[in-house]
């Protein structure tokens, strides 16, 4: 079976600054794949190359079809939900409006989707009319996940979900991601600095170093890998 997402020799740049120098990776359907690496390694840019929010070259295939020159709106409509760094919640809008935006590209009623989202985030019900900006950081991250889930994505791109969250909340976020993956078969490509938790959640992982894939393999193997242990896990 062809992988759901396939990157081959992908390069990307911001103006004159090259951020990716030929990244190749594959994400199989139903998997959680983690991308690890230090600051500036190109983790975020890898996700942005997929969602079309950065100028990119090389081959990107989603479900066998080239994403090519599609802009972010089209990529979103193809079934890829990108939760960017800083979550991309609309702080000025209500929680409910944020969720409505998740279902923006569909014509059908959002009732069923909302009911499904409530199974994972029951507290959203009573916060429906609250302004998203007044939620706590952890709640906003959950809202971003819920909104992405409303998109009914086939692939979820998750950028640094642990950023700025207390350790307990980080565990909670990853627990929900894992649960979504196991119960709904949602495919996830997650970028994370916290290698420890990312390697627990993912089946496969890639390590980026200055815009290239330095290492890759099943999470269990990478966890034992000498350099990963020393650089990213710290023991």
């Amino acid at each position, binding site marked *: 079976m062809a992988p759901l997402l396939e990157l081959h020799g992908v390069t990307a740049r911001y103006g004159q600054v090259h951020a990716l120098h030929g990244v190749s990776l594959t994400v199989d359907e139903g998997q959680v794949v983690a991308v690890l690496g230090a600051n500036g390694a190109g983790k975020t840019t890898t996700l942005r190359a997929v969602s079309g929010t950065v*100028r990119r070259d090389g081959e990107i295939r989603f479900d066998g079809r080239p994403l090519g020159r599609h802009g972010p709106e089209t990529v979103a409509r193809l079934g890829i939900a990108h939760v960017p760094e800083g979550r991309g919640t609309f702080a000025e*809008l209500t929680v409910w*409006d944020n969720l409505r*935006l998740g279902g923006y590209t569909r014509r059908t009623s959002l009732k069923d989707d909302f009911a499904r989202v409530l199974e994972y985030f029951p507290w959203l019900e009573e916060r429906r009319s609250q302004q998203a900006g007044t939620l706590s950081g952890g709640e906003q991250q959950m809202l971003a996940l819920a909104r992405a889930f409303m998109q009914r994505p086939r692939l979820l791109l998750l950028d640094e979900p642990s950023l700025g969250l207390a350790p307990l909340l980080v565990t909670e976020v990853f627990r929900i991601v894992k649960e979504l993956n196991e119960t709904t078969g949602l495919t996830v490509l997650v970028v994370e600095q916290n290698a420890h938790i990312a390697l627990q959640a993912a089946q496969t992982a890639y390590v980026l170093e200055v815009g290239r894939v330095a290492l890759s393999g099943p999470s269990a193997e990478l966890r034992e890998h000498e350099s990963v242990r020393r650089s990213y896990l710290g023991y």
Partner: protein
Amino acid sequence: MVELARRIDLRPHRTYAGVSLPVILGLFAACVFLAGGCLSSGIFAQQTVAGLAQGAVYASLALALVLIYRATEVINFAQGEMAMASVYIAYQLIQWGFSYWEAFVVTLAVAFVLGVVIQVAVIRPVQHTSVIAVVIVTVGLFILIDGLVNWKWGGAIRFMPAPFGQKVYHAGGVAFARQDLGTMAVTVVSVVLLWFLFQFTKLGLGMRAAALRPAAATLVGVRVEVMLAIGWGLAAVLGAVAGLMAEPAQFVLQPTLMQSVLLYAFAAAVLGGLESPAGAVVGGLALGVFLNLVGQYVHFITSELRQPFAFAVLLAVLLVKPTGLFGRSRVRKV
């Protein structure tokens, strides 16, 4: 780097406090004062109603400015001239045999299309270069539209039928012009429709998302460029409403129709806080009433001083409370 700046949302985050309490109390006090004045003096009541009608026109145009400011982050200096051109389109339709209200509806549709075309043709190409480039384009549009209208319809004075007639109602010794009441009604209807569109429809949600956070909006599939174009179209429609309602008060139609109104609309929009649609409406109405009452009761402020006085209001707001009545101070989160 332009691409980078465009993709990353560089705009400062906003605070979420609504209207502050002193502002609410101040507005409430003003309303009490107006109500008291209206009950005790017929002339006061008459001037207040006339002021509300003029203010409704300022409010419509100010709302158009705010719509564009929220979407494109510039003041559209051509807003008044776009409105004036719309009035000439209505004039032409009436000349061709349309009734006033048929022409009214068709003009709004044409204004929408023109607004969209302007955004796509001349704003979009420069939108991501710099704010000053967009401002210069809108100034250029001002000159272009003014020139085109003068070329097509000449500088000659023209007349349009009065949409509400010349009837005057009398109630308790106070005279109310049907024209004033009609202007207010049309403005209220258009503001309510617009509010409904933004608050309750999917299109409105997409437009709000696109204006607030374009980068995040694209990620959920909102076609931001389309939303911005529709925003310009709606602003042009509001402008056309303002123009058509401003015209009868001036009795004649000439290309300078909206130039003073634009100044009042600027003042109203700044008074309301530039980013707040509700602020633009309140600002417009307040300015209309205020200028009328000042003109009536402060004797050295004659009609020649009306415009400088509005400009003084604008300056005072910028100096004392730059965020206006309903504006939110911008706080950059790090």
